[in-house]
């Protein structure tokens, strides 16, 4: 699956796509270079996807507090998606996914980023529907 996601991103035109087998390994990469976007699974070991997301959003030593995070997981039940949102993900893609859906989510993360919220019990992208859209762009041109 990692190879598939990596290949898909590279097919889309993304350069310098790094991969890691779990959250701890990903953090090592993120501490060593600037990363613009994270795509993570849920079920990883020893640091799973939820722990990884929470670390990025709340830990003082997080390499990137505001980074967009897409969770890609087979645990797509409503309760699980809520858990992932509460941990601080930006978007969720259920596995199996289509390349069209993947494209749609990647576009939304870039063109329509969410507001970022700091509240008593939550730090992360707004869990409401997004309202911000990219200025200076006419998306109809791309269709």
């Amino acid at each position, binding site marked *: 699956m990692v190879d598939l996601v990596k290949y898909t991103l590279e097919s889309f035109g993304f350069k310098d796509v790094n991969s890691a087998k779990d959250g701890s390994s990903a953090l090592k990469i993120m501490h060593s270079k600037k990363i613009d976007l994270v795509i993570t699974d849920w079920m990883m*070991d020893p640091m799973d996807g939820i722990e990884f997301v929470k670390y990025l959003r709340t830990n003082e030593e997080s390499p990137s507090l505001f980074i967009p995070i897409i969770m890609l997981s087979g645990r797509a039940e409503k309760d699980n998606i809520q858990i992932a949102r509460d941990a601080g993900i930006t978007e969720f893609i259920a596995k*199996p996914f289509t390349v069209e859906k993947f494209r749609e989510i990647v576009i939304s993360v870039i063109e329509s980023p969410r507001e*970022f919220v700091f509240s008593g019990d939550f730090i992360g992208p707004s869990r409401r529907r997004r309202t911000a859209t990219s200025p200076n762009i006419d998306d109809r041109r791309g269709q």
Partner: protein
Amino acid sequence: MTDKKPRVDKSGARIYKPDFALKKKVGMNISIAHEISEERLAKAQKFIDTKKGEYNQEGLKEVVLLRSAFREFCKNLDFDNSDKRCSEYKLVLNITLNIKSNSGMYDYPLATDIAKTLFEYMMECKNLDQKFKDVVNVHISALGAIFAHKIKDSDEELSQKVLNSLSEATST
């Protein structure tokens, strides 16, 4: 990422507007939708289609891993080492979920269903007894049969035999 002055809502939460950092990196006047063109989508899809043809081999390897991980987990069932048991159980669940997801991606819907059923069973099961082991092992064998014989869906004769054996194991 953020602008310097957040707005504060009624609950006291500070809300920062996004600064479109990623968009700026790509180019404000560039349409991502246009850049990730149909051609690029087709390239990615072609990769998936190629993998579909090869996945049964990978599926078999995953089943071998699953069988081995479950065997290891069962060895420690009688020992009071809950951390080790927990870690091994997570591995079994992890592999099962991988099989479920990958089978869905690469067009093995029957394997997806069986892996999903197995995952749910293991998540809910509280009695880690002989019946539990038997049920899990039958599911693992069923997955192995699916990939060994490249069984795609439940209409095939072989798949009916697989489903019948599962049904028998889970009902006793």
